């Protein structure tokens, strides 16, 4: 074999520029999007948007969506969709609300129960998709309605006819796990920063930003963990492989079924996490919780560079996709524009992102 080991230079391969290597990163589009949106709002929005409290304002909804979007992105890279995650937020909210309010369970039991229920539904979704070979689009569309309906009926049962379950805040008050899932983190740090004048204060001396909302920390932690898993673990390689070509992956020994079912479970658990955080934040749960979030999460994932056909994408991309989302939703209220432009903007972003992704895919695969 050694006779062929000399280095043969192929004169037909041009050296790639740094720019074109950068172009091959799936998250590039989303980062460019964040830059564009930031520039747009720097010119049009009230300067309050980019103060610390303004940033927290748009990062909070971005984080709530982003947790869903990261799950959705991983599932999309694995080659499947889950349209039921929005309804799953309502369903998990119901389970969680019922656990803490109706049954009076402490969080250390209520939270695992919520995750287990969500994971079971996720696994069921996945099992049906894999067993029947039907597109996940249609199977999870069915669960979009089933879960939404079950949440409505369940809420009425739990509350004697109302579609809102109140009293969560009182029920979780004082629980040692509460600070992990609601309120603001690093309160002491921010109070100190306010004291030395680094954070703006109200007239009474309290800081205008009392801390970092916990969902933002969850969001960042999840994005980092997902990126690490995708790029640095064998499981991550299996996700890309399962989504890229199911047959090829399974012929190479990748346990495709296990990978896909675990991704469905993960996505459902992301929805459950959002449910727990938002229900504790609002102090109540209702049947409209998470309405339309499945589409917003998928849009954020696509803006983040995920291909609809699977096998390509990034969690960091979905992270920035969700931030774009939060900036636009909240940012428009700092401008003179009608807030309902938001939907137009969203559709436009999606269209641009899909066209851009398509172009990138052709470059990466060398298709012509």
């Amino acid at each position: 074999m050694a006779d062929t080991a000399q280095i043969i230079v192929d004169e037909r391969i041009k050296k790639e520029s740094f720019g074109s290597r950068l172009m091959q990163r799936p998250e590039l589009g989303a980062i460019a999007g964040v830059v564009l949106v930031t520039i747009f709002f720097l010119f049009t929005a009230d300067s309050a948007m980019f103060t610390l409290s303004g940033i927290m304002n748009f990062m909070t909804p971005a984080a709530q969506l982003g947790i869903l979007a990261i799950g959705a992105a991983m599932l999309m890279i694995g080659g499947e969709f889950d349209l039921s995650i929005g309804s799953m937020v309502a369903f998990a909210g119901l389970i969680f609300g019922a656990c803490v309010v109706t049954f009076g369970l402490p969080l250390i039991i209520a939270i695992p129960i919520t995750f287990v229920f969500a994971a079971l539904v996720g696994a069921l979704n996945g099992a049906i998709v894999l067993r029947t070979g039907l597109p996940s689009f249609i199977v999870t569309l069915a669960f979009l309605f089933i879960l939404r309906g079950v949440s409505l009926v369940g809420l009425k049962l739990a509350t004697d006819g109302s579609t809102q379950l109140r009293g969560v805040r009182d029920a979780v008050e004082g629980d040692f796990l509460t600070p992990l899932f609601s309120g603001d983190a690093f309160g002491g740090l921010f109070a100190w920063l306010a004291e030395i004048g680094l954070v703006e204060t109200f007239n009474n001396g309290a800081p205008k930003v009392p801390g970092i909302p916990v969902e933002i920390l969850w969001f960042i932690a999840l994005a980092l963990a997902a990126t690490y898993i995708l790029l640095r673990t064998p499981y991550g390689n299996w996700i890309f492989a399962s989504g890229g070509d199911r047959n090829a992956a399974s012929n190479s020994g990748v346990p495709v079924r296990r990978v896909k079912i675990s991704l469905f479970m993960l996505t459902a658990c992301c929805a459950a996490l959002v449910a727990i955080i938002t229900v504790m934040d609002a102090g109540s749960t209702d049947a409209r919780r998470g309405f339309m979030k499945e589409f917003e999460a998928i849009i954020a994932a696509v803006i983040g560079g995920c291909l609809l056909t699977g096998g390509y994408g990034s969690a960091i991309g979905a992270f920035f996709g969700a931030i774009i989302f939060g900036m636009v939703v909240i940012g428009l209220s700092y401008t003179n524009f009608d807030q309902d432009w938001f939907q137009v903007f969203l559709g436009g972003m999606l269209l641009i992102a899909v066209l851009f992704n398509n172009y990138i895919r052709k470059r990466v695969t060398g298709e012509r």
Partner: protein
Amino acid sequence: MAKPIIQMENIEKHFGNIIALAGVSFDVVPGECHCLLGDNGAGKSTFIKTMSGVHKPTKGTITLDGKPMHFDSPRDAMEAGIATVFQDLAMIPLMSVTRNFFMGREPTKGRGPFKRMDIKTANDICVESMRAMGINLRGPDQAVGTLSGGERQTVAIARAVHFGAKVLILDEPTSALGVRQTSNVLATIDRVRKQGVGVVFITHNVRHSMAVGDRFTVLNRGKTLGTAERGRITAEELQDMMAGGQELASLEGSLGGTV
């Protein structure tokens, strides 16, 4: 002659009421290239899928290194040292060469929750293996989609060899390639054979098989018509056996012997 690594005797495979294989016998010895020839529909694909653990035979025995074997999955067969390069190559165009190379068998470092892919080792092994096969990658992170058909074939072969294949099954590796790429792949087969791997080369192109084959087995309508050694059979005879004899002979006459 050396003892066969894998021996398949009177393999039958039925799909419902369709008899895809009706008694096929085949063996591979180390360091040889055993060509399996057959026209479309002869049962080549079904046979290699049986050999590589995708299908279970309805009847017949598979012996590996003298011991009877039952493969429940492709993974089983792979672990036993039988690697298959299917026509679709089991390559994912959007993924890098390294990620494809180690797909399903990633090298890891660290323990417990910190167990992670050893990207550097993977990249080094991949580049080195490809160089040994005569291909210089632009970089290990180059997407497989940017490689030519012959190069992809070589990645798939290099991967199988790296993971310790004792038997390498190549499913029509040259059928979609140009002249130059075909000769590259044939050269790769020769290289692999010299390392002591038993190569099963499936093709319907007699000329390609004559270029590298040590033994030739023809499959026709789900049956083997016997095995011939190199030098004991001519290309014309192989061609006739594949086609089932007479019809092609008469056709060939009218076409001036060009088929």
